[in-house]
């Protein structure tokens, strides 16, 4: 049995293989009404029924269905704040066709990077309500906006704490250098709900200081050393090498045997996701030291917010994995070249936000796909991606590189060259900025979409609609 909690929101469109699922024994609300079960039916002809049951006679209301009025008021379902057991099949269907909508929170101390970028986020420019202290003063609003710096000079970007203009950028610059006295913010010990925009901006441009989990993991590492030392003394006194190994390995084995189910674990949902409050929990070689090979069947948000090196990811076999929902969302590769290893997603049935907001990745060596691999917002927010190479045939809708403004000629060519030559009615999206730069007719012209080279390339796949966003 799986477990589920919190708020989930169904997608607008649900398509799946034919199935019939029904479950009770858990409770949830939708549209402020209580329900005791779910019934889901996907017909061979593609019709989908998602029904919420309010009695054991299977009476219910429909979020999506043919025989009842489809009602968007029931689009969100709330399982409450406590984990509830739910049938594996229902859980699998929910996580593949709905998005978790639990609110974002922050707490504790955060430190800005030495400079932060300007933003076109209306939410940040309007000001985000959050309580914090900085430089011995309390504030309840944080915003990034422009400020006039003088007649004839114009305006530039600045960081505001409350009504205080604390840090100002230079004229014409899109970044704001953060003064040392204002770099640290303390949001207090209690969780505060913040806007999604502020949450993402903090993750991208600030560091969470001294996380509690990292302290605890540090103590585990110290205990491991103490166990090693105790085992070594026992082995030395008794002259038994096994005693030394036992002392050294006991803490390591106990954790990883449990965490990886003695090597049998195949469902790695959020297994190595770093905390949503920021900070790095999993550190390669220190506590990220999996004992058993990993070959996930399910990798939903497996490395979300993670920060690991090339070899750590390269060691995972994703060839049989079906669920890549947010697997590497907000992930960053250790190392200056920011190169992500080859990855096999040929068995995927879901790839939404797989590399979402991976601003810490510049190159993906190879993505191995099959004709059934789906694409949905895989590269949303992956603004620093330059190189990507495909292997296999792209034959599903929705591949979207709109945020990859630095994508190289070779990468764009790789995508187009691997589009199926026989399908019809499918669409792919590129960044217009990337195409205009990559195919520009002369340096600085940014006119690539008018070039003969671009026209010649897309002419090879006239069966595809190609959008430049």
């Amino acid at each position, binding site marked *: 049995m799986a477990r589920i909690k919190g708020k989930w929101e169904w997608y607008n469109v649900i398509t799946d293989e034919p199935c019939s699922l029904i479950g009770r024994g858990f409770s949830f609300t939708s549209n402020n009404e209580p329900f005791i079960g779910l019934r889901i039916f996907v017909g061979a002809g593609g019709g989908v029924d998602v029904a919420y049951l309010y009695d054991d006679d299977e009476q219910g209301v429909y979020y999506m269905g043919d025989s009842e009025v489809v009602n968007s008021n029931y689009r969100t379902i709330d399982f409450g704040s406590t984990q509830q057991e739910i049938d594996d099949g229902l859980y699998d269907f929910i996580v593949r066709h709905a998005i978790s909508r639990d609110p974002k929170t922050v707490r504790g101390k955060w430190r800005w990077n030495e400079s932060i970028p300007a933003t076109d986020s209306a939410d940040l420019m309007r000001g985000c309500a959050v309580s914090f202290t900085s430089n011995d003063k309390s504030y309840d609003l944080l915003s990034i906006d422009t400020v006039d710096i003088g007649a004839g000079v114009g305006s530039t970007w600045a960081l505001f704490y409350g009504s205080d203009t604390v840090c100002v950028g230079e004229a014409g610059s899109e970044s704001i250098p953060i003064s040392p006295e204002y770099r640290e913010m303390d949001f207090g010990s209690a969780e505060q709900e913040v806007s999604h925009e502020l949450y993402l901006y903090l993750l991208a441009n600030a560091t969470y200081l001294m996380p509690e989990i990292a302290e605890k993991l540090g103590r585990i590492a110290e205990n491991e050393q103490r166990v090693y030392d105790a085992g070594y003394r026992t082995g030395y006194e008794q002259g038994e090498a096994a005693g030394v190994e036992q002392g050294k390995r006991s803490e390591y084995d106990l954790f990883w045997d449990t965490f990886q189910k003695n090597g049998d674990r195949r469902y790695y949902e959020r297994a190595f996701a770093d905390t949503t409050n920021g900070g790095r929990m999993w550190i390669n070689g220190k506590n990220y030291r999996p004992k058993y090979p990993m070959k996930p069947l399910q990798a939903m948000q497996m490395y979300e917010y993670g920060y690991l090196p090339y070899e750590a990811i390269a060691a995972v076999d994703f060839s049989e994995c079906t669920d890549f929902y947010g697997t590497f969302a907000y992930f960053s590769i250790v190392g200056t070249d920011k190169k992500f290893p080859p990855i096999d997603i040929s068995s995927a049935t879901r790839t939404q936000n797989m590399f979402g907001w991976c601003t810490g990745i510049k190159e993906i060596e190879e993505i191995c796909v099959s004709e059934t691999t789906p694409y949905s917002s895989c590269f949303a927010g992956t603004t620093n991606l330059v190189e990507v190479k495909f292997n296999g045939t792209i034959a599903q809708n929705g591949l979207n590189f709109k945020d990859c403004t630095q994508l190289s000629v070779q990468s764009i060519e790789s995508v187009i060259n691997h589009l199926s030559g026989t399908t019809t009615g499918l*669409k792919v999206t590129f960044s*217009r900025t990337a195409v205009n730069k990559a195919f520009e007719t002369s340096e600085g012209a940014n006119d690539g979409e008018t070039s003969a080279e671009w026209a010649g390339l897309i002419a090879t796949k006239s*069966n595809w*609609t*190609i*959008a*430049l966003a």
Partner: protein
Amino acid sequence: MERIILRAKNGFLFTDGEVYGKTVYLGVNDKPENWHEISKDEYEKRVKEEEAID
């Protein structure tokens, strides 16, 4: 057959309900009537909803 190219006016993008673009190169089986223009603000609102992740 030459591709039909849709170019949105300033401040707008084309969409067919799934995909968005300032410039859209229609595939051989696609038609202009499948697409309509929306404002950039509406586009950003839709994308924000579609890409939300927890």
